């Protein structure tokens, strides 16, 4: 437990110390909120779908959590050769402990980034239903963060260098985001998109987050939780297995 805590604390400290990284990673969500939110807002309103910022903000929050988590997972490739991780791999500590510490640390950082985007959304005019929304939203952000940190860790454990990185960004992370219902309501889209959204775990994260923050959930919130918890558990097991197989 002590070891998990120390590894977690390490990542949180790193995060709090790298202000440039915090600020840099907020550019994208800001662009989405302003460019898309205010740009498409009037069209959305005319189509009778209500306030677009209100709809979009949970999607952008989920996006931030998604990107930060996948990256902190992928960072493993670097870290195990040129960073601190190698030091932990020769320590008399089980690989599973290291992996759990790392995933918890990465997920915490991702939730931290998500909270900052919540604050930015509030500035952009987003309002949530009430104070009860806060713990529920944090819960969904934590689930999304855990799921995708575990996914990133699993992928990075199986990769030997950054050659495949671009591939993963373009064919996994970006589609995960764009086909999740973060940017548009899933109700009236063609069936192909609907089907893709259904097999995309982020859809349930965005949906749950939207529901928690006072919007309408497309799937049921219980479905969202069930899917997220199951997929996260599966990915943690897979990630733990692949992580334990890492040879340097």
């Amino acid at each position, binding site marked *: 437990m002590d070891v998990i805590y120390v590894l977690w604390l390490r990542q949180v400290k790193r995060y709090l110390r790298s202000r440039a990284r915090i600020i840099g990673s907020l550019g994208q969500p800001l662009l989405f909120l302003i460019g898309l939110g205010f740009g498409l807002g009037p069209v959305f309103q005319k189509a009778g779908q209500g306030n677009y910022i209100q709809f979009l903000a949970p999607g952008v929050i989920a996006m931030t959590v998604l990107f930060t988590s996948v990256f902190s997972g992928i960072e493993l490739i670097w870290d195990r050769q040129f960073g601190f991780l190698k*030091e932990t791999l*020769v320590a008399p500590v089980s690989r599973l402990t290291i992996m759990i510490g790392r995933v918890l640390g990465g997920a915490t950082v991702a939730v931290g980034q998500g909270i900052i985007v919540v604050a930015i959304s509030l500035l952009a005019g987003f309002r949530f239903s009430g104070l009860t929304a806060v713990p529920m939203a944090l819960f969904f952000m934590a689930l999304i963060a855990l799921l995708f940190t575990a996914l990133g860790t699993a992928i990075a454990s199986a990769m030997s260098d950054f050659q495949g990185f671009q591939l993963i960004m373009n064919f996994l992370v970006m589609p995960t985001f764009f086909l999740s219902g973060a940017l548009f309501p899933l109700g009236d889209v063609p069936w192909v998109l609907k089907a893709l959204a259904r097999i995309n775990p982020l859809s349930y994260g965005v949906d749950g987050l939207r529901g928690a923050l006072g919007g309408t959930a497309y799937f049921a919130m219980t479905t969202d939780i069930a899917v997220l918890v199951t997929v996260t558990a599966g990915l943690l097991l897979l990630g733990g297995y692949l992580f334990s197989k890492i*040879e340097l």
Partner: protein
Amino acid sequence: MPSMIRVQNLVKTYGKFTAVADISFAVGAGEIFAFLGPNGAGKTTTIKVLTTLLKPTSGKVEIDGLDATLHQNEVRKRFGIVFQDPSLDDELTAYENMDIHGALYRVPRQTRATRIEQLLKLFELWDRRNDRAKFFSGGMRRRLEIARGLLHTPKILFLDEPTLGLDPQTRNQLWTHVRQLNADERVTVFLTTHYMEEAERVAGRIAIIDHGRIVAQGSPEELKRQTGAATLEEAFLGLTGSSIREEDANPLDRMRNMARLWRR
């Protein structure tokens, strides 16, 4: 003299490529032992097997009498290692880097604090203990890594090309520290290098490795006598040939190149 490291018929292959081809050697407690060889000779692979990061294809490795494959965690408690590539957390201070290591090796808090102070003072880093590692020079980082490797009072210290990229003054100082530690704490030192003068100066015994085989081993004098060479450099070139080793860049080399672009 009891053996601290005993390697018998160690073989490590990757697919068709043989990195280490049937080597045997023993390192006594308190000895400074050097693995000397050209690039790609199998030095780092051997260290990785000795430090439980790789499993041997065949053969036996014993650290302090314990089988390295069967008693992984017990073996890990017994050595400290300084890797060829950096392994500090740049965003953490020197003290924090030490402290995390102490937690990973379950060094009790009280002992940890005393030992960190003692080691950082020894390596002349105590005044910089609250500075982040990213502000340290190459030599300071190396010193910090060695200090960290010694925190849990290991019986063996592995040093994989520890002086690569350091200037002569820093190298000199580093070896003075290592020899002092070896004398004061009776730490067995296993190091790899391709600098002959370093091996000759620091090590009591040297094994020359090439193409995954040990081609000669003994004290520097014995090696010279065996080959009839005047200097260790001549002995080394005589044994390993003077052709330059060209290898294709592997994924790791590609990442090293990236690392060079990104840092310093």
